[in-house]
């Protein structure tokens, strides 16, 4: 779609020119409200060189990225098996579902004060809230994914005399995986939102910490740098997950391609 790309490119260009014009050129937007390109650039140099809010950009990015990845992986490691169990066993579903029904309406962000009370301002509290926010979507979508497997496919597996362990790894997991990945994408988004919020509430390092300090210092250039960093991190982790999904669901993308 060259036309689409072209228009998109022009749009971005126009926005950049507007940004420059409104701040530096015409001075319509005061720099106390929104930074000019030059101010943003100098803020970027500032944080990546001398450092800001307790460390340089690399440390902040590393801290945030590590927490999200760890919390996310931990949530998958716990949420997917539970989802498989609930999808597979009606008993487990009946037993666990009501507990979910009462916990689920509480937004993950609302766990932050409790996590801080329990675990303080360090990494543990952030891991807890990230785990919680990513856990629920991975359980629910894995569970729905298992329920979505065609009945005849399950019967074919019984008919072929599949042993239990192989049934889980070769039927339940791949069968549930299209919905599971939908859940994981939601989980990843939720992880980033939660982490930024938790870091804004209180942290020693991390992008949220940068945003927080910049807010207190009334430093719009740094705020924008922080937001761009959040967006790039969110985008790149989503891309990475998307690549994993493409690999894992090759059989499914083939189906989509065949259907046109």
């Amino acid at each position: 779609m060259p036309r689409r790309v072209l228009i998109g490119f022009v749009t971005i260009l126009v926005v950049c020119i507007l940004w420059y014009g409104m701040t530096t050129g015409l001075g319509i937007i005061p720099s106390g409200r929104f930074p000019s390109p030059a101010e943003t650039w100098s803020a970027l140099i500032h944080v990546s060189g001398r450092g800001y809010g307790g460390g340089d950009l690399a440390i902040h990015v590393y801290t945030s990225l590590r927490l999200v990845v760890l919390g996310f992986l931990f949530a998958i490691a716990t949420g997917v098996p539970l989802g498989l169990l609930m999808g597979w066993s009606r008993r487990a579903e009946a037993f666990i579902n009501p507990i979910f029904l009462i916990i689920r309406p509480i937004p993950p962000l609302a766990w932050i004060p409790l996590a801080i009370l329990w675990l303080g301002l360090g990494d543990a509290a952030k891991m807890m809230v990230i785990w919680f926010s990513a856990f629920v979507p991975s359980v629910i979508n894995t569970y729905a994914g298992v329920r979505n497997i065609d009945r005849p496919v399950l019967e074919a597996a019984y008919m072929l005399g599949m042993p239990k362990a192989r049934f889980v790894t070769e039927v339940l997991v791949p069968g549930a995986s299209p919905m599971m990945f939908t859940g994981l994408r939601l989980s990843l988004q939720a992880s980033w939102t939660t982490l930024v919020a938790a870091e804004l509430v209180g942290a020693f390092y991390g992008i949220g910490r940068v945003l927080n300090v910049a807010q207190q210092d009334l430093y719009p250039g740094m705020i924008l740098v922080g937001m761009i960093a959040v967006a790039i991190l969110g985008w790149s982790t989503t891309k990475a997950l998307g690549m994993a999904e493409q690999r894992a669901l090759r059989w499914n993308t083939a189906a989509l391609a065949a259907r046109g």
Partner: protein
Amino acid sequence: MNKQISLAHSVGLGFLGLACFIGLWHGLATSGLVPAVFLPSPVDVYDRFSTLLERRFAGATLPGHLAASFQRFAYGFVLAALIGIPLGLLMGWYQVLDEIVSPLFDALRFVAPIAWVPFAALWFGTGIGGPIMIIFAGAFPPCVINAYRGAKFVDPRLIEAANMLGTPSHRVIREVLLPSSVPSIISGLRVSAGLGWQSLVGAELIVASAGVGYMMVQGQANVSTTTVMAGMVAIGLVGLALDSALRLIERIIQRRRGLDQ
């Protein structure tokens, strides 16, 4: 699938599950293994909840805080719907607009709504304006995306039928395009209400001088775990009520369209 179980069996297991959960919590809280300051029992939380209904904490009673939160939520949510839905519909109908807005929208989509907090505070203050902007940032994208999908993926046969009948184009929009996007728009509103409510809580934790989130932060500062938990319960209840209400509307519309099985 694994064996079906009877309804009675399933309800029984459900109650057993809840009883285990609450029993475990209660047992752990009263056993003395965990200090009661950190893990109050369900009874303590219930007591605190009922106290907060009448007594002021952090400047207001719990209903007072909830009212403050809900007011902000309503402003932000309505604003997101009023701007997001028309924008999404127009993007769905006019390709040029789609091509202009999409790249910007995609670039902004990856900014977690909560990351707008500093600018929100800077631009609109921490009273009511700042939080409204955060809610807007959370609730806006699903409104746009679903309205866009609803408008873009209208069954082309419906449009062809309308054209064949000689319907003027403004009436095609009003009588064909708009109604057929409604189910998708409603689903979008439900998602966006959830995200907006969650963003509100986040915003109040960080900037605000009233509201349930603020109450919880004060509870946390005073090491009053019961207050924090009572706040979580209140947030959960309101979120659940919101979601149920929108789900009901969604279902009514789907039924009227014959979209449910």
